[in-house]
């Protein structure tokens, strides 16, 4: 497999650009069919997708498991919100800087976490998910306590409305997020196909033989952690600008939701990350529609989204651990097989 | 007697074993030799039930082994010493040995005590180090421990996967000799996988040469040693 990648290296660079642009256009085309709420949901997907990609990168490509991506999102969120409200930076610049701040944070954490594997890392990141929001409460005058800091994308600027006509606030938020999503997608697609990406996978698949092959395991893990943190921080900044940067925006559950999205889609696939994010964002709406049609009493209906997500997670893990993307790949495979058979070779 | 017939084992549609057929006579040492990747380890793992064959049969006297669980095969008297001095390094030496006989603890309590005493007599160094963690042993001692763990289950057939791998030649020879003595004195049947063909053929009664999952030679050990063309073609010397 590594052979095919190295041969196609240059082609892939072009293809990933194409794919990122395609996804960008796909979202915009989709948004035109939607009402403002679903446009907001799309923007939400585009935002969370970046965070899910960070998990795909971390877990799928290097085997580290983080239950605290939400906390790193919070770091990015607070960084951008403080830059905008305290220092008067522009929103766009603050998003870019949020990547660096959270990557730096990831570096510190990574230095400690690179020594950890499996459950140790999972648990440590979980403790982090708990502790980070309480820092905001602890240093209330600076971070705004548990009420947080109000920030938003603002109203659609005039140059845009005069160009594309009147658009809703929700559609504007989608336009703000999408370029970053496309960039993140482009970055991850390329990273996973470079030499660095192969090194990471080697570490994931077998640390011992990777070490024997001369790969510095610790350093590799830290680098992956830093990259994933940068992505998560960007997602956190975009997520915060939906309205608020505060502890209740980045709860422990958020980290778990992101992980669920990554798992459902397939931890090793970028297509899977997209599918998984769509699922966790839209599933509650779907369930709400079903429960309201069948008039399920609220005492049950309220808990169904949680139940459905949990069940989906378990079913994925048991039946098809490689997620929706794996299923997809298998179907792909079968179709190919059938075609080649009927082709009479 | 162990009878292997048309055994095929696949890993994601690559045939690691491609129709293996041979017999290993009871009470003798049969060695399986071949280059790296010939399928030697897979053969042992398929016999012991760790790998599920795609087709074919493995019979120990009248008992069909394919389709049975590893535990059932072990309990039927077939013990495997897997590759790489497989002991549990976090457990003590005594615990590792205890583990091998655990399933007989209730039914054969007295015999188990005897079996433990016997392996300690066989490898006195293990008795000295019985309370140490297995991980702290040297490579040779670990291999002795792995063999001891298998022996306390009172096997009738012992499957040995590269016991000399990574050991100093002197130690390796010592271990092979002990196996040889054991076989001669107790009537234990041994199926010995070795990459170091000379060491193995020196003690074995019969030799099987594997290449790319197929049997290319099935001869008495002394004939196999003598066949220089086979050696040159498949073992590279």
């Amino acid at each position: 497999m590594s052979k095919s990648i190295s041969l196609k290296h240059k082609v892939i660079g072009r293809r990933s650009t194409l794919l990122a642009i395609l996804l960008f256009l796909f979202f915009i085309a989709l948004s035109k069919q939607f009402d403002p709420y679903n446009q907001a949901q799309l923007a939400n997907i585009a935002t969370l997708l970046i965070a899910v990609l960070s998990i795909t990168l971390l877990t799928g490509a290097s085997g580290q498991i983080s239950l605290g991506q939400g906390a790193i999102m919070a770091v990015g969120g607070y960084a951008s919100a403080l830059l905008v409200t305290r220092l008067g930076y522009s929103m766009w610049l603050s998003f870019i800087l949020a990547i660096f701040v959270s990557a730096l944070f990831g570096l510190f954490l990574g230095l400690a976490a690179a020594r950890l594997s499996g459950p140790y890392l999972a648990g440590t990141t979980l403790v982090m998910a708990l502790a980070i929001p309480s820092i905001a409460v602890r240093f209330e005058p600076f971070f705004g306590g548990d009420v947080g800091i109000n920030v938003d994308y603002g109203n659609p600027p005039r140059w845009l409305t005069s160009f594309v006509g009147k658009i809703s606030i929700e559609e504007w938020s989608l336009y703000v997020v999408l370029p970053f999503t496309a960039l993140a997608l482009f970055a991850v697609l390329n990273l996973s196909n470079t030499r660095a990406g192969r090194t990471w996978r080697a570490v994931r698949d077998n640390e011992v033989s990777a070490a024997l092959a001369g790969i510095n395991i610790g350093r590799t893990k830290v680098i992956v952690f830093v990259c994933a943190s940068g992505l998560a921080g960007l997602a956190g900044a975009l997520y915060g600008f939906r309205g608020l940067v505060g502890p209740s925006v980045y709860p422990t559950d958020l980290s778990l939701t992101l992980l669920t999205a990554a798992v459902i889609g397939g931890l090793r696939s970028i297509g899977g990350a997209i599918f998984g994010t769509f699922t966790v964002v839209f599933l509650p709406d779907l369930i709400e529609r079903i429960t309201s049609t069948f008039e399920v009493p609220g005492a049950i209906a309220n808990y169904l989204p949680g139940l459905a997500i949990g069940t989906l997670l378990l079913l994925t893990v048991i039946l098809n651990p490689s997620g929706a993307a794996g299923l997809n790949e298998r179907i792909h495979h079968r179709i190919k097989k059938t075609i080649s058979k009927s082709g009479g070779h | 007697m162990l009878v292997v017939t048309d055994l095929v084992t696949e890993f994601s549609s690559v045939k690691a074993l491609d129709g293996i057929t041979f017999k290993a006579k009871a009470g003798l040492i049969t060695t399986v030799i071949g280059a790296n990747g010939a399928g030697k380890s897979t053969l042992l793992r398929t016999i012991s039930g760790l790998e599920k064959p795609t087709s074919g049969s493995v019979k120990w006297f009248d008992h069909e082994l394919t389709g049975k669980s590893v535990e059932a095969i072990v309990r039927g008297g077939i013990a495997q010493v897997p590759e790489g001095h497989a002991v549990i390094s976090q457990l003590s030496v005594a615990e590792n040995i205890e583990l091998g006989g655990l399933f007989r603890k209730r039914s054969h309590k007295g015999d188990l005590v005897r079996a433990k005493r016997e392996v300690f007599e066989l490898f006195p160094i293990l008795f000295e180090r019985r309370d140490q963690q297995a991980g702290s042993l040297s490579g040779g001692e670990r291999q002795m421990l792995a063999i001891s763990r298998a022996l306390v289950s009172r096997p009738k057939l012992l499957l040995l996967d590269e016991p000399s791998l990574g050991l100093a030649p002197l130690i390796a020879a010592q271990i092979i000799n002990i196996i040889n003595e054991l076989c001669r004195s107790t009537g234990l049947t041994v199926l010995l996988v070795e990459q170091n063909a000379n060491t193995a053929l020196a003690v074995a009664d019969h030799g099987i040469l594997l290449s790319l999952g197929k049997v290319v030679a099935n001869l008495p050990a002394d004939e196999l040693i003598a066949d220089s063309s086979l050696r040159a073609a498949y073992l590279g010397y």
Partner: protein
Amino acid sequence: MTSFLTAFFSGTAQGAIYALVSLGLVLVWRGAGVVNFAQMGQAMFTTYIASQLIQHDYSYWSAFVVALFSGAVLGALVDLGLMRPLTSRKNLKSLNSESMRTAIPVIASLGILGILKSLAGIFWAGEERGFPSPIEPTAIKIGSTNLAITGFDLFVIGVVFLALGLTTIFFTRTGVGLAMRASALNPEVTRLSGIKVGSVRTLGWAISGTVSSLAGLLVTPRTNLSPNTLDLLLIIGFTAAVVGGLTSLAGSVLGGFILGYVISFVSVYSAPENVFIAILIFLLLALFLRPQGILGSKEVRRV
């Protein structure tokens, strides 16, 4: 001095609870090689069952026994229904690396946690409840001064050490205990020793389910019972287990008490707002200084 004593006794009492949680985690880790993030979800669920029985006028002790039994059943079910099918599929591409084989059960246990919470919400409307204690929780007195520790706390401490003693004997002195340790450490060699690794693991899950259930029953009299309140205890219990050494039963108990003191001394001498940050710093420090934990054995940790 009074605040020191307050911190010390309340730390001891809390520590006993964290020790119990931590012990439960270490039991599954040693028995099945999995950190069970659903553990306190299971505890929550079985405690609700007990609470329900008590509300329907069954005696405390009958509810206690039923809860322990359902804990064992729930633990066994988790293994049979989930963990076993998972490990039997190791030929799958996504499970072919060691790191993924440790990651996937963690993810699976999170799925169970989510399901148990939702079910508790549906069955018991997510109502916040308390839970009775078998012993009147009144403060121990020295002379006329009340200490910040109750008879019930002493009972919990007693149970913790009893559980520690029994499980230690079980693991080190019995054959099943040896088989259980071996299964977690090296399933292949264990199977080749003729041991039914699957059954041994299921037993391990059942035992841990029982201990978790016990933790739930003894934790909730001091706290409240709701689908979410026990999550925090899991996180603290996990930290305690790591600090003590994930492989060591005695270490987990020690870690539990240490965490109890950290939390209570930070609350009293600094501020309760600093507790979570203190836990994080403490965990990072512990991992940095002694990655294998205070009493953990070094080789088990793959660094």
